[in-house]
C-alpha cells in the first residue's frame, strides 16, 4: 500500500539582537562560559525581566516576511519544567496568544511552486547550554552548564504538517533561512546553534484523511541531516506498517554517526507544563504605527529579488537563485551591473571565477569591491589584457583588493598581440621544439597546447592565446 508522508517542522531561531531578550547581557557567541550572565538571565532570586524592543521588532519583521498576521495584542506565559539548563525552572514563552498567526512560505520543488503554511510564530527565551562529560548524555556521569546562551531571544516557527519528503523539508529550510537572513532577523547559522529544527513525521494510507501516529525527530544538526533523518524515518515507518505493525508515538534521536534514528522511551503522555500568564511582564500591545513602520522598512525579500533579477538582468532561474541565496554575491553582481552592461558576461564571471577565488582565499563577499571586477572586464573587452592574465588579476584583486589597472601598468601586463610581435616567437619556439612541431603536423592536436604554452612562458603569460593558436597552426601547415 502506498503511504503518504506527512511532515511538520518546528524551527527555533536566535534573533539578531545585541542584548538578550529580558536583560542587557551581550548575545555574542563564543565567549568564556558564564561570562555573559546577570541576575536576570541567571534567574537569581528577586530578578525580573524587561522586554528588548529590538527583539519584538525583529520578530514582527520575520513574521511579516513570512506573510503572517501580526497580533496587536499578545501575551507571554510561563512554561514550567525542571532541567539544569533552565535557570528559572520555567521558560518565558507564548502559549495561547502568540505574536503572529498563520503565514506561509512558498518553495520551489522540481520547478513546481508549493505553499507551506505556518501555524504560528512566537517569541520565547533560550535556555543555557549543557555539555556532557564524554560524548553523549547517555554515557555521562555528570554534565556542565554554561548560561551564556540563557535568555537569548528565540523565534519559534511551527509549520502545518504539509511537507511530504525529506527533500522538501530541506528545500523549505533553505528558503526559510534565506528569507529570514534577508529580513535581518537572524543570521541562521545552524553550526553556531542559531537555528535548530525538530520534525514530526507520520505516514498514512494514500487517500486517507486521518493522520497517522507521529514520531518526533530531534538532534538534526544540519539541513542535510534533516533530509537524511526524515528519509530514514519514512523507510522505518513504511517497514513497520507494511509488516502490519503500528507506529508508536515516540521521540527519536537522530544519530549522525550511525545515520539512523534511535527511539527514546518517554513518560506516558506529554509533559504537564502548567502554562499560566507571566505575571512579571505586561501584555504586549503593538501600535498600528509600530507595525506599519516595520512593514515599510521590510527589505527586498528573496522571492522578489529572484523575480527582479530574472526580469531586470535577463538571468535564468538558476543564476537568479544563486545570486539570491548568496546575497553578498548578488550584491556584487548588482553593483557591477550599474557600470557594466554585458550582464551575461558579468554573471558568468561572478558565479564562476569570482566565486571560486573568494572561496580559495577565504574572503567574504562584503570584502570585495565590485569596481575592481568592472575594471577587469572592461580591460579584457578592450583587448588590453588576455584571459589568463585577467584571471590572475582577479585572484590578486580578491586576495589583496589591488586594482587590476594599477597592476597592469606597474608590471606591464598588457596583452601582447599582433603578427609582428608574435610571429618571431612562434618561429623561435617551433625551431626549438622540432618533435612537438612534427607531432602536431602528424595530427596530434595536443602538441599545439605545448607549443602555445612555451610562447606564453616567454611572454610572461601576456600573449594572446587565441592568436597564437592561429599563428602556430598556419606556420606548421606550411
Amino acid at each position, binding site marked *: 500500500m502506498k503511504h503518504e508522508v506527512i511532515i511538520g517542522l518546528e524551527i527555533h531561531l536566535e534573533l539578531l*539582537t*545585541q*542584548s538578550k531578550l529580558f536583560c*542587557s*547581557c*551581550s548575545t555574542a557567541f563564543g565567549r*568564556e*562560559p*558564564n*561570562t*555573559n*550572565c*546577570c*541576575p536576570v538571565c*541567571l534567574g537569581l532570586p528577586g530578578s525580573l525581566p*524587561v*522586554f*528588548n*524592543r*529590538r*527583539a*519584538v521588532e525583529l520578530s514582527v519583521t520575520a513574521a511579516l516576511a513570512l506573510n503572517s498576521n501580526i497580533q496587536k495584542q499578545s*501575551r507571554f506565559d510561563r512554561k514550567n519544567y*525542571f*532541567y*539544569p539548563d533552565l535557570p528559572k525552572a520555567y521558560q518565558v514563552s507564548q502559549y495561547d496568544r502568540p505574536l503572529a498567526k498563520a503565514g506561509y512560505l512558498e518553495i520551489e520543488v522540481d520547478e513546481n511552486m508549493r505553499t507551506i503554511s505556518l501555524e504560528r510564530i512566537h517569541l520565547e527565551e533560550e535556555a543555557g547550554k*549543557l*555539555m*556532557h562529560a564524554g560524548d553523549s*548524555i*547517555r554515557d*555521562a*556521569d*555528570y*554534565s*556542565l*552548564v*554554561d*548560561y551564556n546562551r540563557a535568555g537569548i531571544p528565540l523565534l519559534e516557527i511551527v509549520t502545518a504538517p504539509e511537507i511530504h519528503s525529506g527533500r522538501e523539508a530541506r528545500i523549505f529550510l533553505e528558503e526559510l533561512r534565506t528569507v529570514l537572513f534577508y529580513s535581518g532577523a537572524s543570521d541562521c547559522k545552524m553550526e553556531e546553534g542559531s537555528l535548530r529544527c525538530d520534525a514530526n513525521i507520520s505516514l498514512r494510507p494514500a487517500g486517507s484523511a486521518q493522520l497517522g501516529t507521529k514520531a518526533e525527530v530531534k538532534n538534526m544538526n544540519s539541513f542535510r541531516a534533516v533530509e537524511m533523518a526524515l528519509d530514514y524515518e519514512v523507510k522505518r515507518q513504511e517497514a513497520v506498517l507494511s509488516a502490519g505493525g503500528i507506529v508508536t508515538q515516540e*521521540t527519536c*534521536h537522530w544519530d549522525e554517526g550511525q545515520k539512523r534514528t*534511535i*527511539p*527514546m*522511551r*518517554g*513518560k506516558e503522555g506529554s*509533559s*504537564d507544563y*502548567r502554562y*499560566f*500568564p507571566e*505575571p512579571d*511582564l*505586561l*501584555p*504586549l*500591545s503593538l501600535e498600528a504605527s509600530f507595525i506599519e513602520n516595520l512593514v515599510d522598512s521590510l527589505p527586498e525579500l528573496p522571492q522578489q529579488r529572484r523575480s527582479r533579477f530574472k526580469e531586470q538582468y535577463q538571468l535564468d532561474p538558476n543564476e537568479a537563485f544563486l545570486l539570491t541565496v548568496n546575497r553578498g554575491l548578488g550584491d556584487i553582481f548588482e553593483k557591477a551591473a550599474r557600470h557594466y552592461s554585458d550582464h551575461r558576461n558579468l554573471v558568468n564571471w561572478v558565479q564562476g571565477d569570482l566565486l571560486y577565488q573568494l572561496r580559495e582565499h577565504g574572503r567574504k563577499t562584503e570584502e570585495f569591491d565590485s569596481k575592481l571586477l568592472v575594471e577587469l572586464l572592461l580591460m579584457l573587452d578592450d583587448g588590453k589584457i588576455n584571459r589568463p592574465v585577467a584571471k590572475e588579476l582577479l585572484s590578486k584583486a580578491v586576495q589583496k583588493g589591488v586594482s587590476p589597472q594599477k597592476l597592469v601598468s606597474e608590471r606591464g601586463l598588457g596583452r601582447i598581440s599582433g603578427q609582428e610581435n608574435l610571429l618571431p616567437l612562434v618561429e623561435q619556439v617551433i625551431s626549438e621544439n622540432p618533435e612537438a612541431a612534427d607531432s602536431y603536423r602528424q595530427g596530434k592536436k595536443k602538441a599545439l597546447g605545448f607549443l602555445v604554452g612555451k610562447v606564453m612562458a616567454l611572454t610572461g603569460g601576456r600573449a594572446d592565446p587565441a592568436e597564437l593558436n592561429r599563428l602556430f597552426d598556419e606556420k606548421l601547415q606550411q
Partner: protein
Amino acid sequence: MNIDFSKEVDYVAHLARLSLEPKEKERMADQLSDILQTARRIQELDTSGVEPTSHVLNLPAVLRDDVTEPSLPLSRVLQNTPRCENNFVRVPKITVQEQLEE
C-alpha cells in the same frame, strides 16, 4: 463531594520535584484536601463573560533599548554555586524522563 488528595499527592509531588517522607505525604494529603475543599467554594460563582485578571495594572508592556551592559563578573556568578568545574556549573548525571533504548 470530598476531594481525596491522597491519590494525587505522588503525581503532584513529582511535578513539583518535592521528595516527601511517607508521614509527610499522609499529612500533606489531609491538609491539602481541607484547603482545596475550602477553595472550591469559588466554583459556586458564575464567572461567565468575566475576563481573568492576570495583571492588576492596565498598562502596556515596557520595552527597553537593545543596548548591552556589562555582565556580572564570573566570580559573582559562581559565588553561590554548590558545584563548579572550569567555570561551568556542574550537575550530576541527567537521567530525566527520556532514556535511550535500542
